[in-house]
């Protein structure tokens, strides 16, 4: 059965390998360049004792940066192109009637093919993610953005979880619907829906977020590459107003009830006045140290969903007629 799987997918495997090699070369060259640029800038500003503006220098090229962001769709692509046709294509071309009347059972036919496909695609996604993670090293150091949505999704082990899920989704959709094109559509739609639902509804709650409350005239930034969830002003009564860009903006926003006594002052004086009146500012975030825990939880959720989907595929395949 492994031979059949290899014989059927070797072309795709070779194409995937070639793409991966090309991507690796690109990442390696531009990644080394960006690292050199970063280290040079760091050394230069350290010598001049003026590293404040380091955040503003631009590393690498826009095109490569865009390509890296584009790796976000790798899981969905693998699910569409490899997952959905795995069973559906054979049902469409009726080759299941050949395969399922050989000496190996359908369950084994599915198990071996699903096993190799998941292994192969997970390895592919893992390699892409590893390259992106390494490549983003300087940018992560510069921007401290590795935990931010969008960056989190293309680095570490999360992309492997997404890929296993997308491919499993494709396989199961193909097994249930039995036609390739509709299965691809369902795969994309469900994948996007589930990813969005997990991001919007779950990710920030994997662990209770940390909220830091501090004075309006103080400044505070969570150490390292933390994921900032909210920031803003706390009224004396405890009511919170989220203003992502900080209290200086908040006081200018009409919706914040600036006490009458503090009105008509300059910005700095207004803040001091409000501080005295009991106003504070807050920031809610997931600390940088939780990054890998979050990666593991995110990947775990998607792998668990994938396992459930594959179980469905087995039940459907065994029960339904060829």
């Amino acid at each position, binding site marked *: 059965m492994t031979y059949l799987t290899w014989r059927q997918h070797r072309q795709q495997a070779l194409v995937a390998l070639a793409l991966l090699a090309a991507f690796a070369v690109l990442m390696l060259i531009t990644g080394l360049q960006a690292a050199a640029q970063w280290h040079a800038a760091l050394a230069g500003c350290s010598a001049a004792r003026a590293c404040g503006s380091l955040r503003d220098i631009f590393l690498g090229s826009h095109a490569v940066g865009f390509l890296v962001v584009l790796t976000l769709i790798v899981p969905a692509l693998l699910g569409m192109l490899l997952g959905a046709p795995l069973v559906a294509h054979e049902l469409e071309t009726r080759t299941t009637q050949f395969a399922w009347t050989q000496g190996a059972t359908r369950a084994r036919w599915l198990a071996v093919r699903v096993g190799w496909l998941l292994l192969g695609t997970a390895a592919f996604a893992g390699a892409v993610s590893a390259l992106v993670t390494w490549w983003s090293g300087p940018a992560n150091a510069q921007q401290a953005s590795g935990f931010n949505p969008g960056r989190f999704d293309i680095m570490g082990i999360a992309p492997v979880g997404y890929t296993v899920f997308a491919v499993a989704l494709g396989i199961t959709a193909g097994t249930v619907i039995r036609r390739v094109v509709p299965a691809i559509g369902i795969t994309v739609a469900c994948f996007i829906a589930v990813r969005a639902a997990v991001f919007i509804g779950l990710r920030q709650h994997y662990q209770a977020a940390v909220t830091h409350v501090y004075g309006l005239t103080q400044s505070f930034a969570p150490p390292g590459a933390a994921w900032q969830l909210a920031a803003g002003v706390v009224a004396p009564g405890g009511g919170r107003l989220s203003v992502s860009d900080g209290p200086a903006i908040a006081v200018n926003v009409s919706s914040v009830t600036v006490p009458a006594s503090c009105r008509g002052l300059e910005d700095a004086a207004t803040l001091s006045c409000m501080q005295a009146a009991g106003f504070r500012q807050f920031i809610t975030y997931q600390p940088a140290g939780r990054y890998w825990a979050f990666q593991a939880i995110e990947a775990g959720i998607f792998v668990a969903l994938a396992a459930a989907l594959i179980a469905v595929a087995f039940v459907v395949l065994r029960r339904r007629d*060829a």
Partner: protein
Amino acid sequence: MSEPHRVKVVAAPPALAIETSGLTKRYRRVTALSECSMVVPEGRICALIGPNGAGKTTLLRMLAGLAAPTAGTASVLGGTPRQDPAFLADIGFLAQEMPLYRRMSAADHIKIGAHLNSRWDGESARARLLGLDIPLGRAVGTLSGGQRAQVALALTLAKKPRVLLLDEPVAALDPLARRHFLGTLTSAVAETDGALTVVLSSHLIADIERVCDYLILLTRSQVQLAGDIEDLLAEHKVLIGPKKDTGALAATHTVVHTTTTARQSTLLVRVGGPLIDPAYEAADISLEELVLGYMGASAAPAYAGLTTVAEG
């Protein structure tokens, strides 16, 4: 049929390769097969004949374990068709479309078969295809229909099945390819020396006559006629005589089908005793007449447009 043969049958009833009882398959709205009960003795080459929609494909698919029955039971080589390596090893199934991996060659398929089957005779498949001048290295999608059918049959035979189920294998082939295909089949059956049972669905009676020795006629899921073809031909006669009441005749014989013109009747009867009525002229029956008579329709052009009365 000769007496000694009958005696032999009574003394040792042949083992049954296939037996179904009340086998039914319903899809959401359509009933593809209802209450089908039939047997195929071991070692026979059985023709499964019936009009389109009679349920032949459904029946074969259930026997191969590809489809599960809605009701009733099927037994193939003493076991229920199921997803189990031991059962699958004994079954050779060839679907009507002869599905193969189009981009792979015959040699690839032979290799795949070796990996999928514990019992596999790739060498014989290779030799068979080489003997037919079929290129082993070319993608099967580029082969002609006849060549593809030969590849599919060779692969099915390489499994060394004990029951071979062929669904309309020659329907799409031209007459020469059909002859070659059936030639391969008969020689393969001869090689197994009675260990192989074949069920072959077809609507081409000439082909059936050439290769089959057993017949099951299925119309609207019901088995209309089943048995050894030679026996069936011996048991049936065509009677041509004046148009008159057939009551007396029906007392001894079974009138299967009557075709009448203004002056004369043509009767298909299952003979139940000596034919004594001198008014009728008795003639031997061809397989085609037998099958069509039981199907209740006559295809012979001379009969077209005449009233037919089925009494079977």
